């Protein structure tokens, strides 16, 4: 499981936070998260995989593909996780000791143009 203080911190960003495991990998669901300015849709569900998968130290998936001015490599389209389809772009966060909230914000920073 994840440290309680990190879960509490993430709940400040997403009160509806929940957790599940699938095929031995842990996921955190962040419902109805606000996207950074300039993104469409403005609000989506997110799925954080903090323990790493697909060769990335962590991954953040979205319930919809995000439209933004930033060109990103959406190399995960319709990944079936937790009985839902998820989409994700290629983004490598610094490995090591990122906290859960740091992971989310770091992934989202890829969407910002400035």
């Amino acid at each position, binding site marked *: 499981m994840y440290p309680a203080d990190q879960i509490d911190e993430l709940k400040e*960003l*997403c009160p509806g936070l929940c957790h599940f495991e699938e095929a031995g990998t842990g996921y955190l669901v962040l419902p109805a998260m*606000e996207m950074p300015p300039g993104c469409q849709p403005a609000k989506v569900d997110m799925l954080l995989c903090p323990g790493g998968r697909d060769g990335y130290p962590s991954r953040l998936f979205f319930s919809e593909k995000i439209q933004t001015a930033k060109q990103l490599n959406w190399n995960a389209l319709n990944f079936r996780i937790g009985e839902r389809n998820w989409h994700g772009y290629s983004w490598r966060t610094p490995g090591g000791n990122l*906290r859960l*909230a*740091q992971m989310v*914000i*770091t992934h*989202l920073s890829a969407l*910002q143009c400035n």
Partner: protein
Amino acid sequence: MQLTLRIPKAVLDEAMGDLKRPHAFAYERVGFFRCRPTSDAGLVVVSGYDTVPDGDYVEDPGAGACIGATAIQSALQRILTHNTGQIHVHWHEHDGPTGPSKTDLRDQPRLVGSFQNMDDTLPHGIVILSNTHAWGVLLLPGKKRFQPIKKMSVVAGGIDFL
């Protein structure tokens, strides 16, 4: 160490103008100063101000102003995107010295701790403004205890505070 927060008058005026605006249901408004450390460990400079949009407040009869997850996410995002510390700021509507309420002391240090968790190489903190004075504390880079702001110097317009 005597901690000084230096703030451009234009930024302070922008903040005061924003914080004094009424809100549909929140008793107070909240904003965030952007700040940076300097080579002088006792000096932190404010570089800008970000408002909290009307829709990012949450109705909470137990607090003068309660901001929601979106406002917190935006503040965290600014730390990463703009590489600036975040100072939670609000205004108490009176003259003379001011200070934190019990609610301020309960909620805001936790929020500032999250800012520090995002980037502990930047200063983050809390400032409360009155009409004539200010109160504030900062978590300086790498420090776990809040340091009181002894002096707030308002540049390009004289020194008005503390």
